[in-house]
């Protein structure tokens, strides 16, 4: 089972995402931003970090990388894609997911252990959670405020596409406490917090990030 992890210049959590995939039992394949080739992987993680320094807008420049020329059509065709933090921003900039992520309302970078509720489990990345399961994983971002117009937000809610919501206080001003969303089909998920930092005993606040990675492995096997 091969899961690609894209490295853009300025990606930071690519190493962690690859480790998480391996700990979940998959094979991590490093994909380079400059090559429009997905190397036959069964799923892709767009990792956290500051691609191109997040200059201009987070994710705005990475969206035009050659690898995205291959990834965007593949995602539209059903390839499971998880965008974590900066990856979520890239997915929004690429219009694979609606909305945008803006500067935290308190204007500071924030790193803390964050409680979430998993609200959609029929996605490629959340099948191993129970409906409405509450988990605590790492949150760290400077531009994590999820924004969309009311119509889009209503649509996301109506279609059950809010994958995860913040509990215990909104950490960044996201509309309706949204921490993660999916496309209609559920193969593309964007998540602001970092499950890849919560997969190994002794490192990070727990192991509650691991199901994201086991979910996709199971889903790909059964597909």
């Amino acid at each position, binding site marked *: 089972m091969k899961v690609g992890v894209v490295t853009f210049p300025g990606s930071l959590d690519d190493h962690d995402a690859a480790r998480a995939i391996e700990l979940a039992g998959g094979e991590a394949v490093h994909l380079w931003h400059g090559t429009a080739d997905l190397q036959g992987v069964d799923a892709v993680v767009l990792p956290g970090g500051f691609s191109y320094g997040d200059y*201009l807008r987070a994710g*705005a420049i990475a969206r035009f990388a050659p690898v995205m020329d291959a990834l965007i059509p593949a995602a539209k065709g059903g390839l499971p894609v998880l965008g974590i933090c900066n990856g979520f921003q890239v997915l*929004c*900039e690429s219009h694979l997911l609606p909305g*945008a992520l*803006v500067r935290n309302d*308190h*204007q500071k970078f924030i790193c803390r252990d964050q409680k979430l509720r998993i609200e959609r489990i029929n996605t490629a990345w959340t099948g191993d959670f129970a409906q409405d399961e509450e988990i605590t994983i790492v949150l760290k971002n400077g531009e994590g405020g999820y*924004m969309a117009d009311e119509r889009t937000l209503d649509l996301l809610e109506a279609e059950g596409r809010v994958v995860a919501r913040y509990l215990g206080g909104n950490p960044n*001003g996201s509309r309706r406490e949204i921490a993660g969303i999916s496309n209609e089909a559920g193969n593309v998920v964007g998540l602001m917090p970092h499950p890849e930092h919560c997969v190994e005993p002794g490192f990070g606040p727990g192991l509650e990030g691991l199901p994201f990675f086991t979910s996709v492995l199971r889903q790909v096997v059964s597909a």
Partner: protein
Amino acid sequence: MGTVVVDVMPKQEILDPQGQAVVGALRRLNLSQFTDVRQGKRFTLEVAGDVTDEVLAAAREAAETLLSNPVIEDVVSVRDADAAAAGQEDAS
């Protein structure tokens, strides 16, 4: 050598935390006549030659595809820095 100026502002309906922070700070500086502040971006793009219509068209393309995100921002102006600024607040 010519320069194109591109102005991008957060959409009116989008919360602008930076602008809000500025309002608060202005109040503390006793500059409370300013009731609302919004913070956007201003780009200057240099070209080797003159700012021709083609250059402006290219700049407009850059403004729409890269320099702004239409979900949260509006391009409010794309113009020759040196030209008389009639209609400057007009991106069309």
